[in-house]
């Protein structure tokens, strides 16, 4: 999967036609095969753009930054990235007519060790769902697979699960990198650091991490697109996907196979309801 040449050509043409002010893509970091996202305003820099299976970071995160918010931007999106972009569009955070989107029919990206990322193995929507131009051969929708970690955890006992998650919350250093790197966390003031809230959490105790991560993941439930930006940003390497995948599984199984950001104009799972939603857990 190498679309560097095509992306360079498209970006150069967009700049030449005056269609965009900035282009968001990836470039090599200059010494090994890892890549750095790059926000280009100068058409001369177009030749540095690359796209390979090392292009991991979800670029739709940059659309909430100052450089791109009110500009005409071109960007590259993989399947998962396009889902989060789709949600940003639906939630009126970015304007579609300001964007030129290069969609990728993604074959999966790899992590630092060169292994295919777990979310790519379990990917349901590999092709970009919102795009102006598509690169690669579309593979179509795949079947939903329940995350292997979730399956394994569900089989464990209550005490074992509690112990496992306690370790996660104890190792959280509360840097909030997960939130900042999440493309869908765009609130000007996040509820987990509201200083006026009486439960404000500045400390890195397990109870404050529990509060912050649980609240955060529940606010992303039905919207999380499993791009794993949060996990990539986490300095403690916490398996944050467990919280999101658990929510995703419950939502997919119970709410008419809802998947976040797949359909155009469709909002998160909590913005709608069905009369047939499960009711048996309520007395």
């Amino acid at each position, binding site marked *: 999967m190498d679309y560097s040449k095509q992306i360079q050509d498209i970006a150069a043409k967009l700049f030449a036609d005056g269609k965009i002010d900035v282009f968001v893509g990836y470039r090599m970091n200059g010494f090994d095969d890892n890549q750095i996202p790059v926000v280009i305003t100068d058409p001369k820099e177009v030749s540095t753009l690359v796209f390979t299976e090392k292009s991991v970071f979800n670029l739709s995160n940059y659309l909430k930054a100052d450089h791109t918010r009110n500009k005409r931007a071109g960007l590259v999106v993989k399947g998962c990235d396009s889902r989060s972009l789709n949600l940003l569009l639906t939630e009126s955070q970015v304007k579609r007519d300001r964007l030129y989107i290069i969609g990728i029919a993604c074959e999966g990206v790899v992590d630092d060790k060169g292994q295919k990322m777990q979310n790519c193995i379990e990917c349901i929507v590999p092709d970009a769902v919102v795009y102006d131009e598509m690169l690669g051969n579309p593979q179509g929708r795949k079947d939903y697979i329940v995350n292997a970690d979730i399956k394994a955890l569900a089989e464990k006992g209550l005490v074992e699960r509690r112990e496992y998650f306690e370790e996660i919350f104890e190792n959280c250093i509360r840097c909030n990198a997960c939130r900042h790197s999440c493309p869908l966390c765009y609130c000007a003031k996040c509820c987990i650091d509201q200083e006026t809230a009486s439960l404000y959490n500045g400390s890195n105790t397990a109870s404050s991490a529990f509060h912050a991560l649980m609240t955060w993941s529940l606010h992303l439930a039905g919207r999380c697109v499993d791009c794993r930006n949060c996990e990539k940003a986490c300095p403690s390497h916490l398996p944050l996907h467990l919280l999101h995948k658990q929510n995703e599984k419950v939502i997919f199984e119970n709410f008419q196979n809802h998947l976040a950001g797949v359909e155009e104009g469709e909002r998160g799972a*909590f913005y709608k309801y069905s009369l047939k939603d499960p*009711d048996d857990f309520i007395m």
Partner: protein
Amino acid sequence: MEEVKDKIVSIEKPELLAPPDWKPVIVGILCNWCSYAGSDLTGTSRTQYPPNIRIIRVPCSSRVDPWFIIKALQTTADGVLISGCHPGDCHYISGNYYARRRFLVTRELLKMVGFHEHRVQFSWVSAAEGAKFAQVVKKVTEDVVKLGPLHLYKKENFNK
């Protein structure tokens, strides 16, 4: 329900024993139009129910952010009861349908991270169901007594 049996352990942390005078605290978050009125009816019709519940009134069950549940569990509560109007009866037409989705996801996530499923319970109680409210509170209190005190992620500064 005032009496608590000897040797009650916390189900999530079996190594911890409940003190002999432990009484569970249930936080009840009730919707203004149905469940709160229902609980009122329970009182006016003099139906007995366990005194362990502390009731908070909210405009609608969809006002309940999952955060409220988390906050309750991290502070006072050994168990949480959330109650609203029956489906179709919502004062705001569809609030409880939205709430229902959130409740399911919250409940499943709390189960996942190691809370017993009976810690957080939900019910539909209408304004006419005073007897049902008493029953629900009785059941929730009984369940929580069996589970023992909650010792997960409690706030350090919280003095019960």
